[in-house]
């Protein structure tokens, strides 16, 4: 599997339900970032979680990071139609010229009305 691999690849849920997406990675990271991309648009930053943090919240979003399992999850509670988008995780490793930023393949989330 690749660094920053996400699952599921696609997720369809009913409006009002919670959506959980997962991101796994292989090597130690400095931080992990979650982004949303609406169709035909640029990526929008959601949450950045550092390697020494375990959980962060922002509104209806909750991100967890388990460095022992090298995985992160993004939970969207009480989903809305406007949450329909692709969600990407990005892992940041190394420093300066040795930095690596790798995006996952994304999870396509569809919210059914």
């Amino acid at each position, binding site marked *: 599997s690749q660094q920053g691999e996400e699952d599921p690849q696609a997720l369809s849920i009913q409006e009002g339900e919670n959506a959980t997406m997962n991101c796994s990675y292989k090597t130690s990271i*400095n*931080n992990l*970032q979650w*982004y949303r*991309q609406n169709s035909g*648009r*640029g*990526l*929008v*930053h959601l949450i*950045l979680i550092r390697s020494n943090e375990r959980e962060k919240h922002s509104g209806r979003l909750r991100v967890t990071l388990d460095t022992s399992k090298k995985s992160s999850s993004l939970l969207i509670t009480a989903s809305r139609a406007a949450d329909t988008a*692709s969600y*990407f995780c*990005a892992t*940041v490793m190394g*420093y*300066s*010229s040795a*930095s*690596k*930023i*790798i*995006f996952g*393949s*994304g999870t396509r989330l569809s919210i059914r009305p």
Partner: protein
Amino acid sequence: DTAVSQTPKYLVTQMGNDKSIKCEQNLGHDTMYWYKQDSKKFLKIMFSYNNKELIINETVPNRFSPKSPDKAHLNLHINSLELGDSAVYFCASSQHLGETQYFGPGTRLLVL
């Protein structure tokens, strides 16, 4: 005001041509990036500049040459365009390397 802007938004051109994409950020950030998103939505970093200095240079054909005249601008010049260059190219910026990134709207390049 747009934080990260790119021009043009769409670019349709013939194989073998040379083209440039421009990017500007008004956030006062130190770091700028270029990404390529292919038809399967896979996003891959191409370059990163920090204060006009090239920091990240992934395995990209040398037909692609970034240029940063100042820390608010990072342009991408592509020589001898090939069919496989067709993709969406995103510019982004962050306060420091590896921090939260702000993306531009993308440039949709189609090589015929």
